[in-house]
């Protein structure tokens, strides 16, 4: 991230350097009298000296020629030719044209431009960049050179020749351009050829040249490489290496192609983005990333847990399938690989077990020495590693989006950004384009109003009123959230007691019992559906000035609700069900929690469906047919994304208790994708509010990481560290806590071969000692601290660089004025001489 920031500093060093150089050269030309030389800023002299040393012969030659050219062209009728000339003349004219209004205020833009000044002005790198081929080639020449120096592959003196730096000659002199360009291109080809292939391709892709030219350069490079290869008569080994590299590259491309074809939903995403723009698209992209997270999670658990256990089934399942399982997850599902209880607590042998049935049988370790699979250990480490890797991926993507969306330097040029970067090039639907341009118009107007009228201070009464409204709104929200929390708390307690009673009297219909289990998920889902609507209503009542604050407040409230719900539920499962699971007739509380999570996921999905149906489809029909309004509902991105985050938290919570839960989540996400997609296409219209997509994406990723994944992993770790697992099922049935699995294994290992006792000591010392945990956390904090310090330093450097740019601008003005005046003096002198001649 730091590097990325460093690369995006406001001004790349290339243009800056070349600018100062090409400005300097004319100074040296025109300022010849010692009196004038004093006028030049002191610091420049050093630079000039440096340039002189560097330039040595070639630059001097160039300059001489240039000078003679200048002398020749004193009369201002340069024999220019070719398309570039046309271009320049046009440019000069337009310069004058568009500055016509501000001639008085700008000293530079005087009328008396001599053609020399114009010529030098037009050949400045800042003008030629991105336009002039020569400038681009020389810029990339420098870049490749720098890269090569950094990589230090085969440094050769020849490449450091001073003329590789851009000099005025290549820009200014028409006759020389092609010549200089050819030599520059050769140098570029040379540099490229010496780069490693990946760098070369990156350079080629990033070059702002047309593809035809890039191809040409690439072909030159390839030819050269081939020639060198054939000339050198490489040894067999390096030839082989060459071929291997080529083959690797080809296979890499085909792999990329394959990966690309794997990406689902390309055309659908394109259609959505073409119709609704970046905002709605970000919801679907978020959904896609969630699918990837779940696929990863499932691959890990599937490969290391489900597959080995499915190959060695401990006993046959007898319960018949009744259909209600799909909803409750219990019944015939409960004794399958879906849940924790099914997994064995012994080391899986190589061949399929034939002793069968023995639930508590732990195979002798000596018997399965060649190839054994210790299930408890695998369970523990698979879940742990899955969480760890997910966490790392999330933190990485979070830091990446942070770097992208929150630039180090908070900019104050809002208007400019609005003008140049708010048009969404993706949108292709006519109606949406219309809405977007209307939006931009109103936003610009608002910004203008803000800028022109100073912020009027509202009266005390008004402010008080507003504060009151906000206070009331927040009280309503917090009160309703706490009310719901309490409701869920007491309801879950009631359910728990009901289960206890049911356990005692046995003559209850088992189907009814299972159906009753669905009540808690339903209640929670209803709350999750209704309370956001209430929040929306409240938010509509209070008026926020900026839409972003409004969005943040809405997100905050929804998040508060969802997190408190999950907190209560976690307490219910881990604090109520886990310690007294026998009182409600369970043999395996982990299975029960896994089933609960399955039910919650399913209910969440069903209520998402209902929400889509009633909130979007029926509401649109109602407003169209009954209210006769043309407006369609707007897709609420924030709320939908928060729903997704809630579902994902459930899935993460449940991985420990039900390793197959990611599959359920994947299926659910797929269905949600298609349903939401068709609903959006059918029912919604492009949002009218501005939506800062990149910032919102950052916030969502952060939310996914901080409360969601962190909360889930805290719960899972708590379960592993301090809750006693069920005594009659699951991989950890004989242990006090799941965490002891490692220690147990160590003990067995130590017993088997005592020479490994060091390992077990190391385990007790490193893993069980909390000191190392603290050290790890401390290192993490220190890294964060350093990082923030680096960012701070970069901020300072940016402000310094900005000052420098300003100074450069001043200097440029000064130098051009000086050039102009010297030119005039010379002209006058020439005229005087001529008149003297004529009088003589």
């Amino acid at each position, binding site marked *: 991230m730091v590097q990325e920031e460093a690369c995006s500093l406001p001004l790349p060093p290339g243009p*800056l350097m070349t600018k100062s150089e090409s400005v300097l050269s004319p100074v040296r030309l025109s300022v010849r009298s010692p009196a004038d030389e004093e006028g030049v800023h002191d610091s420049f002299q050093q630079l000039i000296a440096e340039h002189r040393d560097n330039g040595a012969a070639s630059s001097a030659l160039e300059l001489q020629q240039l000078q003679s050219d200048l002398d020749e062209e004193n009369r201002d009728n340069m024999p220019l030719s070719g398309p570039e000339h046309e271009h320049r003349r046009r440019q000069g004219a337009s310069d004058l044209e568009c500055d016509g209004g501000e001639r008085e205020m700008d000293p530079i833009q005087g009328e008396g431009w001599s053609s020399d000044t114009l010529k030098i002005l037009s050949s400045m790198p800042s003008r*030629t960049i991105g336009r002039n081929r020569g400038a681009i080639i020389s810029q990339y020449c420098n870049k490749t050179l720098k890269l090569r120096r950094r990589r230090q592959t085969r440094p050769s003196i020849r490449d450091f020749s001073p003329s590789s730096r851009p000099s005025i000659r290549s820009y200014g002199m028409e006759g020389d351009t092609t010549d200089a360009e050819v030599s520059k291109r050769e140098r570029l080809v040379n540099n490229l050829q010496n780069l490693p292939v990946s760098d070369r391709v990156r350079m080629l*892709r990033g070059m702002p040249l047309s593809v035809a030219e890039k191809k040409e350069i690439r072909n030159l490079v390839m030819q050269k490489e081939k020639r060198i290869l054939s000339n050198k008569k490489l040894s067999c080994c390096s030839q082989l290496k060459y071929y291997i590299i080529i083959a690797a590259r080809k296979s890499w491309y085909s792999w990329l192609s394959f990966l690309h074809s794997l990406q689902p939903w390309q055309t659908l*995403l*394109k259609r959505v983005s073409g119709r609704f723009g970046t905002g709605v698209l970000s919801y679907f992209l978020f959904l896609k990333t969630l699918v990837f997270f779940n696929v990863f999670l499932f691959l890990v658990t599937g490969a290391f847990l489900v597959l080995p256990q499915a190959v060695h089934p401990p006993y046959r399942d007898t319960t018949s399938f009744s259909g209600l399982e799909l909803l409750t997850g219990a019944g015939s599902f409960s004794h399958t690989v879906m849940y924790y209880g099914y997994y064995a607590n012994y080391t899986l042998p190589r061949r399929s077990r034939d002793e069968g049935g023995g639930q508590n049988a732990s195979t002798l370790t000596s018997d399965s020495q060649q190839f054994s699979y210790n299930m408890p250990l695998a369970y523990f480490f698979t879940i742990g590693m899955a969480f760890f890797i997910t966490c790392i991926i999330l933190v990485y993507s979070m830091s990446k989006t942070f770097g992208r969306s929150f630039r180090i330097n908070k900019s104050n040029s809002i208007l*400019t950004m609005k003008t*140049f970067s708010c048009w969404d090039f993706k949108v292709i639907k006519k109606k949406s384009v219309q809405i977007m341009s209307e939006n931009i*118009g109103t936003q610009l107007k608002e910004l203008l109003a803000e800028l022109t009228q100073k912020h009027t201070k509202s009266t005390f009464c008004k402010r008080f009123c507003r504060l009151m409204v906000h206070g009331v709104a927040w009280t309503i929200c917090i009160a309703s959230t706490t009310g719901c929390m309490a409701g869920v708390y007491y309801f879950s307690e009631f359910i728990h007691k009901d289960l206890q009673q049911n356990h005692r009297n046995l003559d209850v219909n088992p189907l009814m019992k299972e159906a009753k289990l669905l009540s808690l998920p339903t209640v929670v889902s209803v709350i999750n559906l209704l309370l956001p609507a209430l929040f929306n209503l409240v938010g509509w009542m209070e008026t926020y000035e900026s839409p972003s604050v409004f969005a943040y407040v809405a997100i905050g409230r929804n998040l508060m609700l969802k997190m408190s719900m999950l907190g209560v539920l976690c307490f219910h499962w881990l604090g109520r069900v886990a310690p007294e699971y026998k009182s409600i007739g369970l043999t395996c509380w982990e299975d029960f929690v896994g089933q609960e999570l399955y039910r919650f996921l399913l209910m969440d999905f069903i209520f998402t469906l209902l929400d889509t149906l009633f909130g979007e489809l029926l509401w649109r029909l109602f407003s169209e047919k009954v209210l006769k309004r043309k407006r369609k509902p707007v897709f609420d991105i924030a709320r939908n994304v928060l729903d997704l985050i809630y579902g994902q938290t459930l899935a993460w919570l449940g991985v420990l208790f039900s390793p197959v839960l990611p599959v359920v989540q994947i299926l659910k996400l797929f269905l949600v994708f298609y349903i939401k997609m068709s609903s959006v296409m059918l029912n919604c219209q492009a949002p009218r509010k501005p939506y800062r997509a990149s910032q919102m994406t950052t916030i969502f990723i952060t939310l996914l990481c901080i409360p969601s994944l962190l909360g889930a992993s805290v719960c899972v770790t708590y379960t592993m560290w301090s809750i006693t697992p069920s005594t009659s099922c699951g991989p950890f049935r004989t242990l006090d806590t799941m965490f002891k699995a490692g220690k147990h294994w160590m003990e067995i290992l130590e017993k088997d071969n005592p020479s490994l006792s060091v390992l077990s000591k190391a385990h007790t010392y490193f893993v069980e000692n909390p000191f190392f945990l603290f050290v790890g956390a401390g290192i993490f904090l220190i890294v964060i601290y350093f990082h923030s310090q680096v960012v701070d330093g970069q901020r300072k450097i940016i402000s310094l660089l900005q000052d420098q740019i300003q100074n450069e601008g001043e200097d440029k003005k000064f130098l051009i004025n000086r050039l102009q005046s010297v030119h005039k003096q010379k002209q006058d002198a020439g005229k005087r001489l001529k008149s003297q001649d004529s009088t003589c």
Partner: protein
Amino acid sequence: MILHRCVIVSILCKFRLHLKGFVIMFSAIKPSIQSICFSHAVFLSLQDCTFFTRKEILRLHGRYHELAPHLVPMDYTNEPDCKIPLALIVNMPELKENPFRNRIVESFSEDGMGNLSFNEFVDMFSVLSEMAPRELKAIYAFKIYDFNVDNYLCKEDLEKTLNKLTKEELTPEEVELVCEKTIEEADLDGDHKLSFADFENMISRAPDFLSTFHIRI
């Protein structure tokens, strides 16, 4: 007489049906037409020079061919020299509603008039793709907004940009004001126009630029 008419109408209808059948048949054949010959070297070089994979290049060529089937040959092994004029390219659904469509096409064409060869066509979508770096995008965005091709964004360019952005909803005074403020904000070296350096500096701090300057193909 009436009978005659009826016959003619029915014949016409039949003819139309036939035509429809033809069109359907043609569209059924189309995918096979799109499998245009490319030499392997062309693929490799295009993949090296742009941000596209083999499949995407093929698809792009399909789109390119679709624009002007009579101009573009199917066989691309020898890289024939053909160009599609601006008027046809601008009609692509991806560009049709874009207010800057003409400028986009013009700034990617070698001749500046908007005629695109296949290479330039690929180049255009490569720069506008998701993978292109900010630097490259900034250069072409600058070109697009530089209406009068003077390598500066001056007031005139800004006015045109604003009018296109808002479909001329702002009054001239407002446009004037926005232009002034914009230049005031972004102009670092004080020459009252935005040079590329100013533009790049501004773009590097606009978080949404990368995601909005992007066309999915």
